[in-house]
């Protein structure tokens, strides 16, 4: 019997799941329980001391969540994963393992607006500083490296403009600086891009978007690539030093190439507390089973809509990496050959007011602050998700006043095009 690598769709359906040990239930049961009984005192002590595999309390781990974790780890090609309550919680838990007050992270300027806020305000209050770099100019990452740099953070496909990041070039900067590369793979999903294959050490997701895919459950996940040596120069004491919370265990020495995922669980999630509900884990798992089918349809629809808009008289520009003339088209063909994703922006000749009008005239597209739903969505970033940024920062992050963002769903593309056409004419 030789090992055979199953395809992505097989993993999307099966990885991590197995018929339930007690009942034989084939769908993954929702283990809606806070806690788990111990076999005896020794078993309890072994679990608390991280000596045995098993469940204690749902803030630390839960069997439904574990299926989700293994599934996403398998799809991304990582060694392990940790599911948490939201994409933002994933970012918090990751950085808590890496940064102390006074340390720095280099982040791409093109990020989801909420992440820009999180890094600029909430994390600053922890004494974690952020240096912004421009993913279109790799040297700006190199220039930002200082002795305090502890990580580099980018999005594979960046929200809101759908631009594609040159992951390999930035991974080379991270390797040279001796810090891990963290990639938010939310907008691509592993169906389009597997950042670990391109040099990422940690992948994070908002499961709320394409992985869950139905706009019904918040969630986040952290995937450990197993590639980074945390003990090399004692830069990451959460992983390399004896941990007083666990009687002096060193996490990397004990857990090897999935140490980062364990640190996130036993030092991050346990103490910070943003646990994912098992019910949400179940909903997201069900969504992931159809990820390859949905993602392809999302991309095919998005390309058709982008092509339509690019010839429309009311539209001044379309930013969709899947269009042949687009600035990011070469990167898209390298990193995401199956499709450029389903989130992109376009600009209206009529400016800010035309953006506000379009949103109110659409009948099928929903005006809301989310992406990656089966339904098609629209938002005017300048007046919503990116409204806290000043005008210069809005432009730099791809959310200028005349810009509208779409997240294309899996409806029939003819209906989406007809809806946009009537709204642009109205």
């Amino acid at each position: 019997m030789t090992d055979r690598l199953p395809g992505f769709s097989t993993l999307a359906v099966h990885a991590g799941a197995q018929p339930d040990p007690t009942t034989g239930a084939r769908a993954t049961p929702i283990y809606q329980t806070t806690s788990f009984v111990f076999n005896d005192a020794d078993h309890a002590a072994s679990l608390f001391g991280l000596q045995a595999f098993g469940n204690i309390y749902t803030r630390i781990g839960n069997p439904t969540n574990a299926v989700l974790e293994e599934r996403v780890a398998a799809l991304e090609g990582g060694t392990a994963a940790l599911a948490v309550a939201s994409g933002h919680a994933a970012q918090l838990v990751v950085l808590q393992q890496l940064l102390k007050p006074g340390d720095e992270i280099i982040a791409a300027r093109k990020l989801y607006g909420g992440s820009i806020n999180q890094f600029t305000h909430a994390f600053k209050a922890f004494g974690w500083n952020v240096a912004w770099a421009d993913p279109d100019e790799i040297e700006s990452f190199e220039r930002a490296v200082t002795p305090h740099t502890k990580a580099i953070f980018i999005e594979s496909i960046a929200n809101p403009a759908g631009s594609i990041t040159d992951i390999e070039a930035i991974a080379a900067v991270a390797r040279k600086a001796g810090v891990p590369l963290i990639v938010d793979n939310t907008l691509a999903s592993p169906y389009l891009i597997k950042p670990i294959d391109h040099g990422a050490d940690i992948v994070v997701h908002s499961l709320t978007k394409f992985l869950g895919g139905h706009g019904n459950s918040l969630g986040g996940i952290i995937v450990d690539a197993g590639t980074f040596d945390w003990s090399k120069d004692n830069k990451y004491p959460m992983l390399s030093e004896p941990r007083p919370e666990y009687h002096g265990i060193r996490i990397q020495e004990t857990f090897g190439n999935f140490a980062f995922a364990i640190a996130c669980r036993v030092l991050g999630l346990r103490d910070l507390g943003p646990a994912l509900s098992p019910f949400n884990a179940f909903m997201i798992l069900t969504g992931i089973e159809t990820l390859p089918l949905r993602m392809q349809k999302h991309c095919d629809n998005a390309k058709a809509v982008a092509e339509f808009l690019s010839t429309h008289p009311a539209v001044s520009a379309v930013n969709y990496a899947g269009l042949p003339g687009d600035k990011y088209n070469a990167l898209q063909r390298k990193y995401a050959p199956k499709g450029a994703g389903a989130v992109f922006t376009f600009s209206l000749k009529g400016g800010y007011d035309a953006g506000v009008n379009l949103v109110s005239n659409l009948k099928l597209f929903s005006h809301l602050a989310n992406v990656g739903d089966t339904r098609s969505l629209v938002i005017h970033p300048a007046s919503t998700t990116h409204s806290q940024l000043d005008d210069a920062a809005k432009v730099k992050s791809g959310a200028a006043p005349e810009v509208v963002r779409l997240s294309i769903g899996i409806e029939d593309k003819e209906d989406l095009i007809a809806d946009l056409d009537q709204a642009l004419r109205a």
Partner: protein
Amino acid sequence: MNHDAYDDNYIRSILNNVKSIAMVGASPVNVRPSYFAFKYLAQRGYDMIPVNPGHVGKALMGKPFVASLADIDRPIDMIDIFRNSSHIMPVVEEALKLSPLPKVIWMQLGARDDAAAEKAEAAGLKVVMNRCPKIEYGRLSSEISWMGVNSRTLSSKRAPIPTQGMRLSLNRTSFGGGQTAASDRAAKNKTETT
């Protein structure tokens, strides 16, 4: 043998076939990785022997420590070495003097000595380096999946309920062996930087 990435079948056949394991460098201190691994392997039914000259007179889970491999009174199938890479060679040399010879030399996570591995392989032994048998057992049985670890295995059969002393089936369908793009890269990064 490619010691950067093992095929699952190789690891599986070792863990399925060995019965007695001498653990060199076993520690009675309950936060050391050797203690975790010793206890787990004992619970999964292996005949475990702790070897550590510093703790003779004490016992680990009821098993008395011995000072050296030569002091063990029965044939041993596998030697699990919990020592730094620089201390591997003398242990392997000692192992190769045993009669009957052990079948497997296993070096723990973080430990690797290619010269010692070559010597053992030349004598017909199987060698695993830079791995933990507890983690590999947990992965191949999928028991470790409870911690979100990618077992890199699939199964459509009902999962077992692990109980004390129970041997678990390691015969799930594997994918990708020990090899992932990431594991290759990690091995490569290591050699580049050292």
